[in-house]
C-alpha cells in the first residue's frame, strides 16, 4: 500500500481539488472519536453508482467519514448480489460493510455469513422509518440496517403509448412489438411473468414457474432487447417505448425525457430493500458499525438518496429532501400501494438454479435448434483441424521430397 501511496504522489494528474466540505454533521461526535489516530481502515463493498462521491459539489461520504473518524475507507463496488455473494462466501476477501439486497440478506443470514449488529454503536438506526423494521428478509432486524429501497414498475413513453398502462400486461402487447425492453436478469424477469399470471413471485411451485417461462417465451418475439443499463439510452432516445424498471432508474430517466411515465402495476409488484450488513468474517466490526451509523446521519442518507435517485428509508433524511421528491408518487408511493408489494425471498439454491436454467432456455431460443447446432459445430471444427493437419503434413513431406530430390541431383 505504501508503494501505491508513492505512486499516487508521482502522478501529477492526481490533483484532488478539495471540495472543502465543512462537515455540518450535527451528530454526537463522541462515538466517532473512538478510533482516531489508530490508522484503522475498513473495507466497504457497495453497488456501483450508489453513494454520493463528491462530484457536482455534493457530499463525499467516504471522505467525510475519514475526516470525522480517522478511519480509512477502502471502497469497492459490485454489479450484482451474486457477484458480491461469491466473493464473501469464497472467504478469500474480508469486507467490513456490505450492502446486499433483501433476498440475499436472508440467504446470507441462513448461511451464517452475517454478524449480529450491536445497535449501541448505531444510535442513528432510530432514524429508520418503523415500517422498515422486521421485514421478512431479516425478521428480527438484528443483522441489517436499511440503506435504500425502491419498487419495480413499468416505464413508458406517453407520446407513443396513448392508452392507459396499468400493469405488466402491457409488456405482452402485440401492438408494441419490437418496442418492448425486458430485464436481462432471471429474477426480475420471472417475477414479472409470475405476477402477470397472478402467482406469487416467491412461489416454489415448479408448475407455476414453468408456466411463467412459457409467458416469457411468448414475449420473446415482441421484445426488442434484454437490457441492463442500456435501458437509459433506449428509453430516453425513444428507440423503445416501454420497459419494466426500478423506480430509482425511472426517476433518473425522466430527468432526460419529459414524456416518460412510470406506473406501479395495480396487481402488485416487487419491492427491493438494500441494507447495510457486517459479514461475520469482519475483524473491525465496531468500526464497521460506526460506518453504518454514519450512513444513517440524515445529511448523509439524504445526499445518497439524491445521488442515486432511490428512495431512502431514513425518516429524517426524507424530511430533508426537496419538496418535489418528497411528494413524488414514484419514489414514495402511498402506503396502500405499498401494501401490495413484497420483497423477494431466497427459495433454495436448487430453485435458483432451476429458474436460471429456464431463463437461459428463453434467451438462447428455439430448443429445436440447439439440439443440433452444437454437435454440428464441433464436427465442423474437428474436420477443419484434421484437414489443416493433413495439409501441413503433406506440405512438409513435399518440401522434404524437394530437398531430398535436390540433394540427389
Amino acid at each position, binding site marked *: *500500500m505504501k*508503494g*501505491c501511496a508513492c*505512486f*499516487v504522489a508521482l*502522478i501529477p494528474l*492526481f*490533483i*484532488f*481539488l478539495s*471540495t472543502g466540505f465543512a462537515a455540518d454533521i450535527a451528530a454526537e461526535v463522541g462515538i466517532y472519536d473512538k478510533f482516531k489516530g489508530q490508522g484503522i481502515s475498513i*473495507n*466497504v*463493498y457497495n*453497488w*456501483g*453508482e*450508489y453513494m454520493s*462521491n*463528491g*462530484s*457536482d*459539489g455534493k457530499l*463525499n461520504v*467516504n*471522505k467525510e467519514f475519514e475526516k470525522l473518524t480517522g478511519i480509512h475507507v*477502502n*471502497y*469497492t*463496488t*459490485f*454489479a*450484482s448480489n451474486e457477484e458480491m455473494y461469491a466473493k464473501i462466501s*469464497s*472467504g*478469500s*476477501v*474480508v*469486507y467490513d460493510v456490505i450492502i446486499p439486497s433483501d433476498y440475499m440478506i436472508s440467504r446470507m443470514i441462513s448461511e451464517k455469513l452475517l454478524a449480529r449488529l450491536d445497535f449501541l454503536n448505531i444510535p442513528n438506526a432510530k432514524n429508520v422509518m418503523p415500517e422498515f423494521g422486521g421485514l421478512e428478509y431479516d425478521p428480527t432486524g438484528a443483522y441489517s440496517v436499511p440503506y435504500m429501497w425502491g419498487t419495480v414498475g413499468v416505464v413508458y413513453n406517453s407520446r407513443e403509448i396513448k392508452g392507459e398502462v396499468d400493469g405488466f400486461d402491457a409488456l405482452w402487447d402485440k401492438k408494441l412489438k419490437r418496442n418492448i425492453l425486458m430485464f436481462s436478469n432471471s429474477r426480475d424477469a420471472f417475477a414479472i411473468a409470475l405476477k402477470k399470471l397472478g402467482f406469487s413471485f416467491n412461489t416454489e411451485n415448479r408448475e407455476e414457474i414453468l408456466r411463467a417461462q412459457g409467458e416469457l417465451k411468448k414475449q420473446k418475439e415482441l421484445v426488442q432487447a434484454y437490457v*441492463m*443499463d442500456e435501458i*437509459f*439510452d*433506449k428509453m*430516453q*432516445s425513444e*428507440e423503445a417505448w416501454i420497459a419494466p424498471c426500478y423506480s*430509482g*432508474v425511472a426517476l*433518473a430517466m425522466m430527468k*432526460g425525457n419529459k414524456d416518460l411515465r412510470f406506473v406501479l402495476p395495480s396487481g402488485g409488484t416487487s419491492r427491493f430493500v438494500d441494507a447495510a450488513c457486517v459479514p461475520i468474517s469482519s475483524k473491525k466490526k465496531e468500526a464497521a458499525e460506526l460506518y453504518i451509523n454514519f450512513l444513517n446521519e440524515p445529511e448523509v442518507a439524504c445526499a445518497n438518496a439524491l445521488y*442515486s435517485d432511490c428512495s431512502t428509508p431514513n425518516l429524517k433524511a426524507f424530511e430533508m429532501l426537496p419538496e418535489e421528491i418528497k411528494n413524488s408518487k414514484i419514489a414514495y408511493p402511498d402506503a396502500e400501494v405499498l401494501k401490495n408489494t413484497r420483497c423477494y425471498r431466497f427459495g433454495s439454491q436448487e430453485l435458483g438454479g432451476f429458474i436460471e436454467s429456464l431463463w437461459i432456455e428463453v434467451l438462447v431460443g428455439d430448443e429445436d435448434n440447439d439440439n443440433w447446432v452444437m454437435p454440428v459445430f464441433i464436427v465442423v471444427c474437428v474436420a477443419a483441424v484434421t484437414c489443416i493437419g493433413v495439409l501441413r503434413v503433406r506440405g512438409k513431406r513435399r518440401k522434404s521430397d524437394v530437398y531430398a530430390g535436390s540433394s540427389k541431383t
Partner: protein
Amino acid sequence: MKRKLGSRLYVALFLLFMYLPILVLVAFSFNASRSRSHWTGFTFAWYNKLFHNQEIWSAILNTLFVATIAPIVATVLGTISAVGVHFLGKRFKRIMITLTNLPIINPEIITGVSLMLMFKFLRIEAGFKTLILAHVSFNVPYVIFNVLPKLKQMDKHLCDVAMDLGCNWVQVFFKVILPEILPGVMAGFLMAVAFSLDDFVVSYFTSGPTSQALPLTIFAMTRRKVSPEINAFSSIMFVLVLSIIFVMQRLELRSKQVVRGRKTG
C-alpha cells in the same frame, strides 16, 4: 488511377471502422446530458467531475499501479526465462515453448478462477499482492514470445566472442545480449502493459477490497448507468496514448535521419 482510388477507399473505410467508435466516445464525453444517444449540448462538465470523483480516480490509480508494476516484474522474469529457453537443447526448448504457450491459449476465465483458488489455498488475502501476482503470471508468456525471436536473430557467435575477450556471463548478458534483444524486451513490456490495463476477467477473480481496477468499477456501474465521466477518462487516455506514439515516431524518424546524415556526410 482507378486502382489507387479503390485502395484509398479501402484504407479510409478501414480507418473509419477502427476509429469511429472512439470518435463517438470522445464526442459524447462533451455531451451535456448523461445520454449516450442524444446530443443535448456541449460541455466540459464531465471532465471537471472526473477530477472530483474519488471513486473513479482511485480505480484509475489502482489500474495504473498494477499495469506498471506487473509488467516490469514480468519483463524481468520473461527476459531471463527467454534467454534460458533459447540456450536449451532442442527437445527441452520445444517443451518449454509449449508450456509457455498454454497460458496464452487457456481461456482467461480458467486462469482467473484457478488463480483465485490457488490464492485461497495458500491463504493469501486478496488485494494488490494477488492482483499483481496474477497479472505477472499472464504477462510473462507475452514477454517471452516477444524476446525469443530477437534472440534467434542474434548472431550466436557474439556471445562466444565476448567471452573470449574476457567477459563473464553477467557481462555478456548486459553488454551483448540485452542491447541486441532490447526492442523485443520493450515490445514485450508494452504488450504486457496493454494487457494489464484492460484486463477484466482475471482481475475480477483476484482483486480484493483495496485493489479494485477500473474495468471492474465500470462494470459495477451497469446496474444503474455507466457515467459519462468514463467517456471523459477514455478520451484523455486516447489523446495521451496518441501523442506518446506521435512523439516516439518523430524521435525515431529524427534519429534515423541523423544516422543517414552521418553515413552520407
